């Protein structure tokens, strides 16, 4: 079941206490996130950077799915942001922070154009259409060596500029520092995505998902709102792409292939798309599993196989995703304690 989108926060003391608890949890979370890189090895720090970027990728993907449409082109759209930001910096000398924003803008613009053919389709046809659109974009990257670098892609992309002031000097070549940069950008982006979902816009997205004919009949321009969701999701995917490009320093068409899209789908589905935090949980848990468990067992070469198995198992046994596990466990616990509310409805 979706979160009651846009519902006003509960008033009264109960609401105030809950809000305080929520804020405290957020403070702890950020403290933990700030401490995290210092507990990791250098190579693990690099993975942490990519994980933070992937959190934005999968969260932006969820916003698109709110209207009920699942795209197979989201990673390519991320690539649009990566290529655009890289090219702007490399060829036109646009300063990197600005090129990143423009990269997001380019991804959003491509989405706005694509929405005209794509939103004539729904469901399965939209899925296939978005895949085709993505492959066309990838073909363009491969075909046009100037400016996209062909199959080899772009190399030596300008890094994020160092910050040099009198007493402060930050070199973003260091994964720790880029981790904090990504964390700031992604947190701000997630905040915006969250606000959108909790506003009337989010309510309207959900309405279109569940009953687009009824929404249209009371004046919702469903095409415009589907486009809006697609454009916003693509903007943030583009930002994620730009963060990636200026960190890794190279992009190529293969990096944004449909294999990568499958990972995004697995993160989202395994985490659970019904809530805002579900897909985030999915990407974090699966990355940890991947990097720690699989690597330790020497199984990381068969990652696609294992991801496939995880996807099937989660669809069979956890249809609402990992995020529903918390709810279930809490209910179970309350049941054991003989609590009055054994059915356990999720506290908002």
């Amino acid at each position, binding site marked *: 079941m979706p979160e009651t989108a846009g519902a006003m926060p509960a008033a009264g003391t109960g609401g105030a206490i809950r809000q305080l608890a929520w804020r405290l949890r957020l403070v702890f979370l950020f403290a933990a996130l700030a401490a995290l890189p210092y507990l990791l090895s250098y190579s693990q720090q690099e993975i942490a950077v990519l994980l933070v970027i992937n959190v934005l990728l999968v969260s932006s993907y969820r916003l698109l799915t709110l209207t009920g449409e699942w795209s197979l082109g989201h990673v390519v759209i991320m690539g649009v942001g990566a290529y655009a930001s890289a090219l702007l910096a490399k060829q036109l000398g646009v300063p990197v922070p600005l090129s990143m924003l423009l990269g997001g803008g380019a991804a959003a613009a491509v989405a706005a154009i694509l929405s005209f053919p794509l939103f004539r389709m729904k469901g399965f046809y939209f899925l296939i259409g978005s895949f085709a659109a993505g492959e066309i974009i990838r073909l363009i990257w491969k075909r046009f060596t100037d400016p996209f670098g062909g199959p080899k892609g772009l190399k030596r992309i300008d890094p994020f500029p160092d910050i040099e002031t009198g007493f402060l000097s930050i070199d973003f070549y260091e994964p720790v520092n880029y981790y904090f940069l990504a964390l700031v950008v992604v947190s701000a982006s997630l905040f915006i995505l969250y606000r959108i979902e909790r506003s009337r816009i989010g309510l309207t997205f959900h309405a279109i998902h569940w009953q687009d004919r009824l929404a249209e009949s*009371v004046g919702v321009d469903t095409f415009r709102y589907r486009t809006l969701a697609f454009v916003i999701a693509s903007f943030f995917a583009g930002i994620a792409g730009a963060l990636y490009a200026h960190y890794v320093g190279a992009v190529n068409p293969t990096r944004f292939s449909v294999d990568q899209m499958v990972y995004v789908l697995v993160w989202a589905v395994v985490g659970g798309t019904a809530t805002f935090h579900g897909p985030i949980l999915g990407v974090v848990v699966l990355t940890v599993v991947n990097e720690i468990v699989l690597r330790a067992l020497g199984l990381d070469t068969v990652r696609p196989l294992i991801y496939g198995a995880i996807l099937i198992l989660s669809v069979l046994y956890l249809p609402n995703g990992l995020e529903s596990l918390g709810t279930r466990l809490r209910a179970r616990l309350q049941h054991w304690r003989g609590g009055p509310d054994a059915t356990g409805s999720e506290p908002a």
Partner: protein
Amino acid sequence: MTMQGERPILEARGLTRRFGGLIAVDNFSFSVSEGAIHGLIGPNGAGKTTTFNVISGFYAPSAGRVFFRGLDISGRKTSALAAMGLVRTFQGSTLFQEFSVLDNIRVGRHLGARAGFLSRLLGTDRQSEREADERARETLAFFGLEELADEPVSNLPHGHQRMLGMAVALAAEPKVLLLDEPFTGMNPEETRCMMALVRRIREGGVTVMLVEHDMQAVMNLCDTITVMNFGALLVEGAPEAVRNDPAVIEAYLGSAAADGAGHVA
């Protein structure tokens, strides 16, 4: 064509809608006077819902035109028509089943609660949202559903769901409300209550056009009734005249014989 002295608020001229070889609506014309409760009846499959779908922009007409307040609206988008004040309900319970009752109405108030993207993001739409919520609760109170505001829709009994469907449409503040079988599946008590509500909606200045199989309700409620059969106009007139028209009786008896069970009981 009947001359009532009032100007028509909604009019169809030569409306036709084909599905492949099937002609669901066939050169159909009617006109609805402002402030009326206008019935549209006919046997199953006569093309009533299709007519609504064409008027409300869900389907483009294959031929013919629709006029709303004198303006040619044929083929316009449903959402644009809603913004002009033409809103329809659906046959059967078409609701946001996963939402609360109040959230259903809040979506219904989509047009009345405008705000820019940035003000949604920054939360400066709070004032207009609060107003929208107040109006939504008023709408709920009008239908006697205010107690159920926070219930999930799926918990509501059928009768209440039908009412809520009408409430969602009314929240969009229509000038013309198209109701597709508003009384279906209701018991006599609920039907009586709904009829009173439809009258009150009309008193509030809303023109109502309704499709309904409950003949007693239709005859009691409507000022004018249009009867269609096989997609085409059969008869139009006052309830008394329509009730006793041999062609109407023939059409219903014919279809009743064919179906084994007719709706006119």
